[in-house]
């Protein structure tokens, strides 16, 4: 992982069309501004990873034949 130190209002540019800027820093919270093409989706890391984990569990699902009766 590349680690860079940035101050408020400084930015990093990723590839040729993504820019991440430090908008504000308050205590241990950093506000990021992200400029990216519309089709590049941006996710909070822990949420993406949570959903990845849940998808892996979901992919193991097995169901009884009478599953509709449970509803």
């Amino acid at each position, binding site marked *: 992982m590349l680690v860079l130190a940035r101050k408020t209002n400084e930015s990093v540019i990723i590839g040729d069309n993504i820019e991440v800027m430090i908008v504000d820093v308050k205590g241990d919270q950093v506000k990021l501004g992200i400029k990216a093409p519309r089709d590049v989706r941006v996710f909070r890391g822990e949420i993406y990873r949570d*959903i*990845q984990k*849940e*998808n892996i569990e979901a*992919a193991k*699902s097995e169901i*009884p034949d009478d*599953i*509709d009766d449970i509803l």
Partner: protein
Amino acid sequence: MTQSTMKIATKRFGNIEVEEDKILHFPEGIFAFEEYQRYVLISVKEKSEFYWLQSLENSDLAFLVVNTAIHLPDYRPEIEEEFLSVLGIEDITQTECWIIITVPQGKPNEMTANLQGPLLINPKNRKAAQFVSANEKHIVRAPFLEILQKGIGS
């Protein structure tokens, strides 16, 4: 004109034929399974509320899903409109919304619904993707039977 079909291998159903115009294309895959892009919806059985979202590229991979319009009409995922561009649209009302159900081993009564990571499908071009709902009430493991009865409360 006859429907174009193709044969696919599946762990749960053996070899089946799918109509090519039913094939869904996930340009970015599904989180944790990003390398698989082609899926098809298969009803669990006739008149079932449940479907399997079966991968065409990995015969073992399928997700149990339900359509929220039918079962959770109050569920409205909060998604940045510009992220819908991956489906080729800007308007969420043009999409079908499906959620993934996790069934704990041997405990179907405890099945949970992933409200935080819904799947949206554009029925016109068959493109689909998983999204993240910004609504904090949309949790990743919502007790499905409970929310069917009581609603989501958002």
